[in-house]
């Protein structure tokens, strides 16, 4: 499991890889919170195209970031969900709450156009 974090304009992008479960979430959460604490951002894109498996621990991690961002009026977009990840997202109802784009390039295009 890993996360690669970079800045795109006023947004932060986190590209996740591997399985997102109770063992990997703490590692990824610490890294992302450290990045969020260091800078002001308008929003967060979490790209899940490299995530093969996600359960309620992973959903909780994403929902937690969504609430954290929303407190300061920030947005959260998730991208690249497929297979088991998509299934769990849809069963959870989280797709009703958190914006979703097919792919990371599509999300980057959308935030560029918003300005």
């Amino acid at each position: 499991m890993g996360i690669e974090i970079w800045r795109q304009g006023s947004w932060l992008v986190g590209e996740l890889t591997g399985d997102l479960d109770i063992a990997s979430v703490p590692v990824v959460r610490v890294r992302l919170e450290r990045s969020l604490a260091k800078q002001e951002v308008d929003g967060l894109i979490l790209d899940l195209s490299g995530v093969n498996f996600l359960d309620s621990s992973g959903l909780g991690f994403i929902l937690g970031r969504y609430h954290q961002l929303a407190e300061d009026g920030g947005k959260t977009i998730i991208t690249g969900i497929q297979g088991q990840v998509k299934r769990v997202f849809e069963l959870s109802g989280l797709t009703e709450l958190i914006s979703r784009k097919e792919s990371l390039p599509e999300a980057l295009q959308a935030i560029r156009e918003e300005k």
Partner: protein
Amino acid sequence: MTTNYVRLEFPSKPENVAFARTAVSAFVSQLDPTVPELADISTAISEATTNIVVHAYPESEGLVRISATLIGQRVKIEVWDNGCGIFDPRSIRHFGTTTCNQDRMGIGLSLIEACMDHLEIETKEGEGTQLTMWKCLGQQRSDSGND
């Protein structure tokens, strides 16, 4: 009708959750399930095992036992702990968590129900919990038209 089974036993460490879902999936593969069926089984095992790590033994480590039995095209999976038990029976059928962890959503048991055909919960305060779940495999393959 041939039957086959496996039993797994391990301590309730977070890093064993991935082991549990991989091992059960590898075993269930014998029934030639579809990719979505196998994904649902992984999800259910991951949720059941995570609940044991988080809720059954909140302060320390305890024993997790999982058995999977193949009966024709059906798999029966039992997940056992001898932890604290589910003391609020409402937690079983309703969304919500009893843990003060901001990032838990209280949907683990609901996900298991959605991913399996049937779920039974036996629990006793202070004695532990056993989940028994069933799923019929190769279903989606014959019901063509479904993804």
